């Protein structure tokens, strides 16, 4: 009896103490955001770019910088399509840290940084003066600069779209969300430091489009794709001309090649 009971008891005891199977927290495959600019003939949707800019300005820019975009990029071809006057007005709405005044000061009497209105040549100002300040304001997490984010992440705009629409889900049983983090299964490890940034109607679009979370995410991902690759439309157009030229040239060269070699065989 003991010869069965003891080993059996040990085995059952072991089973009882065995930890639950570790959950695989690999991120989910990214969603397809059906973006207009994908593919060899894709172009940016101007409306989406302008709405996306509004989302960036009103929501994301509180924590995320856009260091490589200058205000004059807003009126360039292949971009959001603002006029120069509109871009100037947008620039003027921002406070840019000013150069030293005649007394050599850069702070006012109360210790605030002196500022001046932005001009077209200025770049979007960062929300925090340095990384440490950014971390201090975000539970030690560093919100990355967004000017290259679509090129800097595997999956590009669809990854950004998946993350932004991947919040507000219930984590599976057995998965604990770390303190100060949020559950998002599209992020590797499922614990993302960014709180859900988008809310339905969080932005009121001037063109009347309904601001669902999916719409806002789609528009801001389009805008960020443009920020990462402002020359995309020019690149694809030039590509078409170049390839057509090269194919015709290849045809001519092939004919010449056949002609030259005709008498060699």
């Amino acid at each position: 009896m003991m010869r069965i009971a003891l080993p059996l008891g040990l085995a059952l005891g072991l089973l009882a103490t065995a930890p639950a199977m570790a959950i695989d927290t690999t991120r989910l495959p990214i969603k397809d955001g059906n973006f207009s600019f994908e593919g060899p003939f894709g172009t940016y949707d101007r409306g989406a770019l302008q709405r996306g800019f509004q989302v960036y300005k009103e929501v994301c820019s509180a924590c995320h910088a856009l260091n490589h975009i200058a205000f004059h990029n807003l009126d360039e071809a292949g971009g959001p399509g603002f006029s120069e006057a509109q871009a100037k007005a947008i620039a003027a709405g921002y406070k840019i840290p000013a150069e030293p005044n005649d007394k050599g000061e850069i702070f006012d009497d109360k210790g605030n940084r002196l500022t001046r209105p932005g001009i077209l040549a200025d770049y979007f100002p960062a929300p925090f003066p340095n990384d440490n300040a950014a971390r201090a304001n975000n539970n030690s997490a560093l919100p990355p600069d967004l000017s290259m984010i679509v090129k800097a992440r595997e999956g590009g705009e669809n990854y950004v779209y998946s993350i932004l629409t991947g919040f507000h889900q219930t984590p599976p049983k057995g998965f604990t969300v770390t303190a100060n983090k949020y559950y998002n299964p599209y992020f590797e490890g499922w614990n993302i430091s960014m709180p859900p940034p988008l809310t339905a109607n969080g932005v009121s679009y001037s063109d009347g489009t309904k601001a669902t979370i999916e719409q806002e995410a789609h528009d801001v991902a389009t805008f960020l794709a443009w920020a990462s690759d402002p020359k995309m439309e020019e690149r694809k157009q030039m590509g078409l001309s170049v390839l057509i030229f090269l194919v015709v040239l290849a045809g001519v060269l092939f004919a010449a090649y056949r002609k030259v070699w005709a008498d060699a065989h």
Partner: protein
Amino acid sequence: MSGQSTYTPKSGLEKWIDQRLPLPRLMHDTMQTFPTPRNLNIWYTFGGILTFCLAVQIITGIVLAMHYVANADMAFDSVERIMRDVNYGWLIRYIHANGASMFFLAVYIHMFRGLYYGSYKAPRELIWIIGVLIYLLMMATAFFGYVLPWGQMSFWGATVITNLFSAIPVVGTHIATWLWGDFAVGDATLNRFFSLHYLVPFIIAGVVGLHIWALHVPGNNNPLGIDVKSPQDTVPFHPYYTVKDAFYLCLFVIIFAGFVFYAPNFFGNPDNYQQANPLVTPPDIVPEWYLLPFYAMLRSIPNKLMGVLVMGGAIATLVFIPWLDTSRVRSCRFRPLMKQFFWAFAVSAVILGYCGAQSVDAAIAGIPLVWVARLCSIYYYAFFWLIMPIVGLIETPKKLPASIAQSVLGASAAAAAE
């Protein structure tokens, strides 16, 4: 092959120049009348394509250097300025970055052509060895160049590869410090890598000159692997091979343009669009695709020094190939047994490349990739050190044709032409 020059200057000016600097004569003899086997196929066009690639990289590189700033604080931003602000900067940068990949694609095809047709065999051993030197210089140039954008992969790739030198016993850490100019990869490293990246392509250009000069002594090999026996076996380089090379170059440029304009980041790694951060290591550090097979070999050996030696030995092995292959027959077209080992080698090189791209603990169907890499590394060494010597001795080659002309024109035509 090198022989009497057939150049006769036609005008007074040509005569005057020819007496003082026989450059037109050189051009005429090497690129116009040079007798070239009449049966060269598409795989023989890659030498010309490589020269084009080198020229493109040098021109785009010099232009990029007008805007790039080699300083750790400014390098990443200067590349973004090129992409966004410099007129056509995005185009020149994408040509340069994708050009490096196209350069290596062409060089691998060129090398495999040499292996298949026995172009490394006597009397062309030195052409092959000079070629290995060019390949080494290309890898060094590409490595230095990838560091320059100062992205996460730039920085950490540089860290991993320069740390390899610390594997050398006794002097290793001193060498690594000396390479870095600092206690780790940093601004000092970046600046010297920029200087070297600018320099080495011109060394490559000079060595390519030696490569072509050495080639022009015996003349080109050909897919049959048999020597040129009479003038009927050859055609003048111009117009036959100038037009053929031009056509295939055009096809190559079409593929090149496809990447530049429609998939410019296909060969790249998204992590390199993030600025270098010495405090954060990316989850997977990978070099560019053309270095992956050697990277896989390095990682498959658990011992640091042995890994370096295995990887270095794999490249050094290439130098000995002319003497490792014992076959009397050059071309694999007539070597039925060797041909199969050759293709197995090509496949194992691709598998090694795949292994190099995956993370260290990856597995396929339960088999850890590190064991696949070990197997392929063993095959790599076995192919050169065992298979090449042994197969050459035991294989029965197929019957070689009497001459190139006979093979191309047919026996009666060849006889009639004589």
